[in-house]
C-alpha cells in the first residue's frame, strides 16, 4: 500500500509461516493412533481431545480472519453496527450449552461424524441428510473465502502481491502459495495439523491483542481521544448518499438489524460442520460444557479487537478496501518486526480455521454423499482418500467466492454462509430434543428457507456490486431491516410446523429412528474396570480406536508446555 515491500515485517512473517508449516507436517505423528487411515483418525483426531485442545479447536472456529479483519473492518466502515459480533459470541455459549452435549452423546453412541449422520439416523431420511450435507459444504465455502481474504489483506499491506500489481498472476501468487501450503498439510495430517498449530496461533494472537490494546491507545492519546476522533470520522456525510458514515451507538432504526445479526449468527455458528468437528473430537460429554464456561475469554478478546476499528478511524487510516484498515493500522503503529508478528498472527489465524473448515466439509461429503449415494461399500481407507481430495476441492470452491464477490465487505462472506447454514437448525437441534417434526416437513422448511434466503441476499445491492452486496433486508410484516438469515429461519420453522401438523394428520409414513432417548445423555465409557460391557453398545463402524485411556490432564500439561514456549 505504501509502495515497496516491508522487508523486516515480511521476514518475520515468513519465519512464523515456515514454523507452522513444519509443525503442520509433523502433526501427523503427534498423538498418533493405531489406525491412521480411518476417517475418525484423520477427521476427528481419533476423538481423543480433552478440554484444552478442544478449547483451542473451538477457539479456532471463532477466532478467525472474521474477528481479526472482518469485524474491525465493519466497525471501521460503519461504527456501532459492526459490534454485533460481540453479542453474537455472548449468546453462542448459553445456546450450545443446551444442545451440544446431547449431540456429542448421541454421536458417540452411534459413531456419527457429521450432523448429517445424526439427521439420517434420527429421521431415517436420506433426503434430509443430503440437504444438510449440501448446505454444510456450500455454507463453508464463503467462510473459508473470508479466511483467504484475510490473508490477502495482510499480504497486500506488506506490499507483496495484492492490488498494487497489475499482472493477475503476480497479484495472487502469494495467496496461492499460502493456499497451497495449507492444502498440503491438511491433506497429510488431517485435524491434527490445525489442532497443533492452534497453540502457536493463539499464543501469537493473545500477544498481539495484548500489545495492540495497550500500545495503540497510548499512542493515540487514550480512549477518550479515540472515540472523539472516531465519532467525528463517523459523522462525516457520505457525498453519494448524504447520510453519515455511521454512529457510535446503535440508532433506533439499526437495532433490529443489530439484534437479528447477533442472534442469527449465534444460532448459525454451531451448525457449521467445522464447529461440530471440533465438538465431536472431544473425549467426553462434559468437555463441551466445561468449554462453554471458558470460551467466553475469546469473546472478550473479540470485543477488544473490534475496538481496533475505532482506533483505525482515530488514527486517520484511509484505505479504499476496509479489510486493509487493521493491517494498515498495525503497520503504521508498530515497529516493523512486531508488525511482522502481528501479520503472522492474522495469517496463521486465518489458515488454521480454513484447514478445520475444509476438513469438516470434506468429512461431510465423504460420509453423507460419497458413501450414502455413490459408493456405499467404501473401505475406511477409500473414505479417507476421498475426504482428503474433497478438502482440496472445497478450498477451490472458496477461491471462487473470493474471486466472485466484493472483497471490501468481507463480513458478508460469513453472513451469507450463515443464511444458508441456519436452515439446518430445525432438523439438527429440533431433532436433538424431539422427534415430533416430520422429515418431509423439515425438508420443505429447509427448502423454503434456502430459497428465500438466497433470493433475498441476491437482491441486496452493495456499493461495489448489484447482487449479494449485503445480508440485511426488510423483514416482511415488520417493516424493519434485519438479518436475512433470521427471516429465512423463521419462515423455515413456520413451514416445518404447519406441514408437520398436516403430515401427522394425514398419517404420512415416518422414518425409522435408530436412536433411543438414553443415547442423548450417555457419557464416554471410562477405561476403568467393570465398564467393558458398554462398549458393545456403540456401533462405531469398526473404525474407532477404542482407547479411552488418554488422560485429560495430560492434555492440559501438554498445552501449557506448548504455549509457554
Amino acid at each position: 500500500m505504501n509502495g515497496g515491500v516491508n522487508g523486516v515485517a515480511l521476514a518475520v512473517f515468513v519465519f512464523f509461516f515456515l514454523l507452522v508449516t513444519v509443525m503442520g507436517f509433523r502433526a501427523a505423528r503427534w498423538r498418533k493412533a493405531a489406525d491412521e487411515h480411518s476417517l475418525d483418525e484423520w477427521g476427528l483426531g481419533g476423538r481423543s481431545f480433552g478440554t484444552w485442545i478442544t478449547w483451542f479447536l473451538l477457539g479456532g472456529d471463532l477466532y478467525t480472519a472474521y474477528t481479526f479483519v472482518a469485524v474491525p473492518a465493519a466497525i471501521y466502515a460503519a461504527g456501532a453496527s459492526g459490534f454485533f459480533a460481540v453479542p453474537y459470541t455472548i449468546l453462542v455459549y448459553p445456546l450450545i450449552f443446551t444442545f451440544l452435549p446431547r449431540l456429542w452423546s448421541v454421536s458417540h453412541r452411534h459413531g456419527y461424524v457429521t450432523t448429517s449422520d445424526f439427521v439420517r439416523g434420527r429421521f431415517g431420511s436420506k433426503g434430509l441428510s443430503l440437504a444438510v450435507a449440501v448446505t454444510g459444504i456450500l455454507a463453508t465455502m464463503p467462510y473459508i473465502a473470508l479466511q483467504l481474504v484475510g490473508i490477502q489483506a495482510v499480504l497486500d499491506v506488506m506490499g507483496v502481491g495484492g492490488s498494487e500489481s497489475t499482472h493477475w498472476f503476480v497479484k495472487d501468487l502469494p495467496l496461492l502459495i499460502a493456499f497451497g501450503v495449507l492444502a498440503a498439510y491438511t491433506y497429510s495430517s488431517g485435524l491434527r495439523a490445525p489442532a497443533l498449530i492452534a497453540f502457536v496461533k493463539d499464543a501469537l494472537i493473545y500477544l498481539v491483542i495484548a500489545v495492540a490494546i495497550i500500545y495503540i491507545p497510548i499512542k493515540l492519546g487514550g480512549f477518550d481521544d479515540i472515540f472523539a476522533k472516531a465519532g467525528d470520522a463517523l459523522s462525516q456525510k457520505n457525498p453519494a448518499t448524504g447520510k453519515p458514515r455511521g454512529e457510535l451507538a446503535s440508532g433506533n432504526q439499526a437495532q433490529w438489524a443489530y439484534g437479528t445479526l447477533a442472534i442469527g449468527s449465534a444460532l448459525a455458528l454451531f451448525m457449521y460442520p467445522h464447529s461440530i468437528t471440533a465438538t465431536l473430537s472431544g473425549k467426553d460429554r462434559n468437555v463441551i460444557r466445561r468449554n462453554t464456561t471458558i470460551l467466553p475469554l475469546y469473546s472478550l478478546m473479540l470485543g477488544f479487537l473490534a475496538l481496533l476499528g475505532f482506533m483505525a478511524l482515530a488514527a486517520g487510516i484511509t484505505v479504499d478496501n476496509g479489510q486493509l484498515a487493521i493491517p494498515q493500522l498495525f503497520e503504521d503503529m508498530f515497529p516493523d518486526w512486531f508488525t511482522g508478528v502481528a501479520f503472522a498472527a492474522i495469517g496463521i489465524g486465518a489458515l488454521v480455521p480454513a484447514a478445520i473448515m475444509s476438513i469438516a466439509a470434506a468429512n461431510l461429503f465423504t460420509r453423507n454423499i460419497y458413501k450414502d449415494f455413490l459408493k456405499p461399500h467404501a473401505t475406511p481407507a477409500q473414505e479417507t482418500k476421498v475426504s482428503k481430495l474433497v478438502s482440496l476441492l472445497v478450498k477451490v470452491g472458496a477461491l471462487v467466492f473470493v474471486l466472485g464477490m466484493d472483497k471490501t465487505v468481507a463480513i458478508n462472506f460469513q453472513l451469507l454462509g450463515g443464511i444458508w447454514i441456519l436452515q439446518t437448525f430445525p432438523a439438527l437441534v429440533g431433532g436433538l430434543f424431539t422427534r415430533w417434526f416430520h422429515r418431509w416437513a423439515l425438508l420443505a422448511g429447509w427448502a423454503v428457507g434456502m430459497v428465500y434466503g438466497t433470493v433475498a441476499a441476491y437482491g441486496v445491492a452493495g456499493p461495489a456490486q448489484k447482487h449479494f452486496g449485503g445480508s440485511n433486508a426488510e423483514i416482511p410484516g415488520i417493516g424493519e431491516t434485519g438479518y436475512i438469515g433470521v427471516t429465512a429461519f423463521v419462515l423455515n420453522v413456520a413451514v416445518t410446523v404447519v406441514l408437520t401438523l398436516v403430515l401427522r394428520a394425514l398419517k404420512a409414513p415416518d422414518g425409522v429412528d435408530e436412536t433411543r432417548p438414553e443415547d442423548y445423555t450417555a457419557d464416554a465409557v471410562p477405561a476403568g474396570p467393570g465398564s467393558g460391557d458398554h462398549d458393545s453398545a456403540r456401533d462405531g463402524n469398526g473404525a474407532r480406536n477404542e482407547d479411552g485411556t488418554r488422560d485429560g490432564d495430560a492434555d492440559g500439561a501438554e498445552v501449557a508446555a506448548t504455549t509457554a514456549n
Partner: protein
Amino acid sequence: MSAPPPTGKGHPAVTPARIVAGLCLFAPFVGILWVDSYARIEPRLIGVPFFYWYQMLWVLVSAALTMVAYRIVRREQAGARRAPAEPEATGSGEAR
C-alpha cells in the same frame, strides 16, 4: 424463537435447580437482544462509550451465569448417578 427451552431436556421432572440453570442460560438473551436498553453513549468508562463497555461486561456476566448452570447440572448428574433407579447412568466421565 430466540432461546432454547430452558428446561426442556431429559425425562426427570422439572426440578427447581434446573429452572435456575435454565434462567441462567436464558438471561443473556434478554439482556443482549434488548438493544434499546444499552444503545447510548453515556456514561463512559475510561473514555469508552456505554454501548461498548456494557456489552463487554455482559461477556463476563454471561460466562459467570454459564458457570453456575454448569455447576448445577453437574451436581444433578452426580445425584442421578448415585440414585439406584437409573442403571443407565455410568461411570465417572467428569472425574476431575
